[in-house]
C-alpha cells in the first residue's frame, strides 16, 4: 500500500521554456502552467492490498483481529438470519451482504464514536455492527416505518435506497463538522454500480475541492443486480476514479478484513488530520442473490460463486488466527454460540408483530402539520374509529 502523501504542488514553470521557441522569436510566451496536484501518489496500486496470508499479517494487532473475527462471525449469522426471516414473511425484503462482511464490519470498526457512517441500502450489517439496535436497523426492511433508528443517536445516516445519493450528504456533513471545528470523519459506502451515478461524481468532486474529512468505500462486489462490472465501467479499477478528482485512490482485498481495516484506518486518519478525502475500492463478491427476491442463476455461473465462496472472509481470517495460534476450538465455539444467541434474539424480536399506528402517516411530514394534513388526519381518524366501532359491534354480537 502506498504511503499517504499530501498533494504536491509543482512550482509554476513556463513550459515554452523547456521546449524552447525554436523558430519564431516573436512568439509570445504562454502564461505559466501548473499541474495543481502531483498525480503519482493518487494512483492506486496495481493489485488489491492484502494483509492476511502475507508478511504484513504478522504486524496486525491480535486483539483487533480477534475483535474483527467476532464481528465477522456475528455478521455472517446476521445475514443468514435476516434472509431466513424473509422466508417467514417477517421481513419484506433483505439485501444480504454475505461474502462482504469484511467490508461491513471494518467500516463500522474503523470509526470513532463521534464519526458518522453513511450506509447504502445493502449495509444493514455495517449499521448493526456500528451499534444500532438490529430491530431498529431492520425497520426499513420489515416495513413498519422507513428509518427505524435515530441517526443522531448513533451517528448513522438512514440506509439510502436511491443509489449514491447519500454520498453528497456525507460530504456536506463532514464539511459542516470541519467548519464547526469538530473532529468528525464521515465514511460513506457505495456499490460498484453506484459509482456510475452523477451523485457519486459530484460528491467526490465537492469532497476534493473542499478537502472534506470523508472516506468513500466502494464495495465492488462484481454486480449491480444482474449487471457485471464489465458493463458498468471500463476503468482500470474503480479506485482509479480518485485521480480525476485529485484525491488518493486505494485498492484493497475486500474479503481480507485486516486489509480493509488498515486501508480505511489510514484514510480515516488522513481525513482526520486535514489530508482530505480518499476513495477506497474493496474488491469483494456478493455471495447471495441481489435480494431474496432475485434469482442470480439467471445471470451468473455457479463456478464463479463457488470460487468466491471458497475465498470466504470469515474463513480466511479464521485460518490466519488458527495458524498463528490466536484462536482455538473453544474460543471459536464461544464466538459461534454468541452469534447464535444474537440470532435467536433477533428471531424472537422480529417474530412479534410491530406496533404500527396509521396516524403516524401525518406526524412527521412537517414540524407542524399543514391545515390540509390536519383535515386528512381527521378523515383517517374517522375511518379508523368507524372501523373500530364496526368491529366492536361485531365483536359484541
Amino acid at each position: 500500500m502506498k504511503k499517504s502523501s499530501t498533494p504536491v504542488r509543482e512550482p509554476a514553470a513556463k513550459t515554452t521554456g523547456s521546449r524552447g521557441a525554436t523558430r519564431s522569436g516573436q512568439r509570445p510566451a504562454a502564461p505559466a502552467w501548473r499541474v495543481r496536484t502531483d498525480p503519482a501518489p493518487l494512483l492506486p496500486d496495481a493489485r488489491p492490498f492484502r494483509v492476511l496470508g502475507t508478511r504484513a499479517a504478522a504486524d496486525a494487532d491480535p486483539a483487533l483481529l480477534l475483535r474483527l473475527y467476532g464481528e465477522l462471525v456475528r455478521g455472517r449469522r446476521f445475514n443468514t438470519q435476516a434472509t431466513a426471516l424473509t422466508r417467514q414473511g417477517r421481513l419484506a425484503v433483505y439485501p444480504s451482504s454475505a461474502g462482504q462482511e469484511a467490508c461491513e464490519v471494518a467500516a463500522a470498526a474503523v470509526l470513532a464514536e463521534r464519526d458518522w457512517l453513511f450506509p447504502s441500502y445493502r449495509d444493514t450489517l455495517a449499521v448493526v455492527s456500528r451499534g444500532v439496535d438490529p430491530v431498529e436497523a431492520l425497520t426499513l426492511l420489515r416495513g413498519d416505518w422507513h428509518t427505524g433508528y435515530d441517526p443522531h443517536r448513533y451517528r448513522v445516516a438512514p440506509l439510502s435506497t436511491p443509489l449514491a445519493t447519500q454520498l453528497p450528504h456525507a460530504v456536506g456533513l463532514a464539511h459542516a463538522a470541519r467548519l464547526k471545528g469538530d473532529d468528525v470523519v464521515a465514511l460513506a459506502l457505495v456499490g460498484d454500480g453506484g459509482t456510475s451515478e452523477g451523485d457519486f461524481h459530484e460528491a467526490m468532486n465537492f469532497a476534493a475541492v473542499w478537502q472534506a474529512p470523508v472516506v468513500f468505500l466502494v464495495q465492488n462486489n462484481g454486480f449491480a443486480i444482474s449487471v457485471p462490472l464489465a458493463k458498468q465501467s471500463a476503468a482500470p479499477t474503480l479506485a482509479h476514479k480518485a485521480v480525476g478528482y485529485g484525491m488518493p485512490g486505494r485498492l484493497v482485498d475486500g474479503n481480507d478484513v485486516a486489509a480493509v481495516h488498515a486501508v480505511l484506518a489510514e484514510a480515516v486518519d488522513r481525513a482526520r488530520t486535514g489530508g482530505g478525502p480518499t476513495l477506497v475500492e474493496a474488491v469483494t463478491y456478493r455471495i447471495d442473490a441481489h435480494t431474496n427476491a432475485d434469482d442470480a442463476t439467471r445471470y451468473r455461473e455457479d463456478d464463479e460463486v463457488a470460487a468466491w465462496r471458497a475465498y470466504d472472509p470469515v474463513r480466511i481470517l479464521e485460518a490466519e488466527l488458527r495458524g498463528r495460534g490466536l484462536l482455538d476450538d473453544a474460543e471459536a465455539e464461544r464466538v459461534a454460540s454468541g452469534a447464535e444467541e444474537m440470532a435467536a434474539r433477533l428471531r424472537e424480536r422480529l417474530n412479534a408483530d410491530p406496533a404500527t399506528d396509521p396516524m403516524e402517516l401525518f406526524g412527521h411530514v412537517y414540524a407542524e402539520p399543514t391545515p390540509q394534513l390536519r383535515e386528512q388526519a381527521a378523515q383517517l381518524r374517522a375511518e379508523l374509529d368507524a372501523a373500530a366501532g364496526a368491529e366492536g359491534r361485531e365483536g359484541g354480537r
Partner: protein
Amino acid sequence: MTTVAAQRTAGGAKPATMAQAIQRALRDAMADDPAVHVLGEDVGTLGGVFRITDGLAKEFGDDRCTDTPLAEAGILGTAVGMAMYGLRPVVEMQFDAFAYPSFEQLASHVAKMRNRTGGALPLPLTVRIPYGGGIGGVEHHSDSSEAYYMATPGLHVVTPATVEDAYGLLRAAIASDDPVIFLEPKRLYWSKAAWSPQAPAAVEPIGKAVVRRSGTSATLITYGPSLPVCLEAAEAARAEGWDLEVVDLRSLVPFDDETVVRSVRRTGRAVVVHESVGFGGPGGEIAARVSERCFHHLEAPVLRVAGFDVPYPPPMLEGHHLPGVDRVLDAVARLQWEAES
C-alpha cells in the same frame, strides 16, 4: 370502444397478465422495426426486475436490448442521442423514484427538443416507468409521479389499466414521433385478462379515454392502478342505489376532455380517483377542468379521492394510504344527494 375490444379478443383469447402484454408489445415493436432499441438497468440478461424485457436480449441481441450502466440521466440522455440519429429508444426506469435523476434530461431536453428546433429534431422516445404502490415496496419504490410529467409540455403521458391497453398503448407510444411517458401500474402487472397475443389489439391513437362502465348517478374519473378500485366501488354502490359510470382516462396528456365532459354532463356528479398525492396531484387539473366545463350540469362539487399528501408510506401502512373502495364510496356519498331529491 368496449365492444371493439370485446370483438378483438373474441377468437382464441387466453388469459394473459399485463406484464406479458407489455413484454409482447416490446417484442412485436422490435420485430416490426429495427430502429426500436430497449435500454435500461438489468433489462438484458435478467430481463428486468419485473421480467418485462425477458427474452428480448436473447432474441434481438445485446445491441437491441442493452444493460446500461447504473445512471438514469445517462440512460435517458444517451437515448436522446440515439433518437436524434433515427432510432426509437424505449427506456426502462427501474422504479418511479429512480427516474428522478433523469429529470433534467426529461424536462430540459426530451420534452423540449422538437420545439426548440422548430420541429427539426423530433424525439421518438418512450420512457417506461413502473409506478405506484400496493406491492409492499420499501421507500422510493412506490411513487406516483405523474403530476411531474403532466406539468411538462412536450411529453405525452399515458397509463394502461387493462391488459389489452397495456399492449395497445405501448405500441402507440413506441410508434409515436413524440416522447411518451408510459406509466406501468406495478400492482396491475399480474392482473389477468383474456387477451389473444395472436391477434393483438390494433394500436389506438394516444389521447382517448374510455368508459369502462356505464352509469347514470355519478362519474368516477380514474386511470391506471385505481381503475379496478373504481369498478369494484361501482359494483358495491349498486347496493346503495347508485349507478356509477367509470371513465378510464388512459391518457393524461393529451387529455380527453370530450369523453370526460360528456359523461359528467350526463351524470351531473363526479369523483376523481387516483393514488397520487391529492394536493398538486393530477386530480386538481382534472377536477378543475371538469368543474369549469360542466359548471351548469353539476349537482355537487367535483370531489377527489387521492393518496394523502405525505411521502409514500412504508409497506405496513400503505393500506391506509391508498384510496380503496370504501373511501371512494364515502366520496360518492358526499355528492349532495339530498340536495337533488
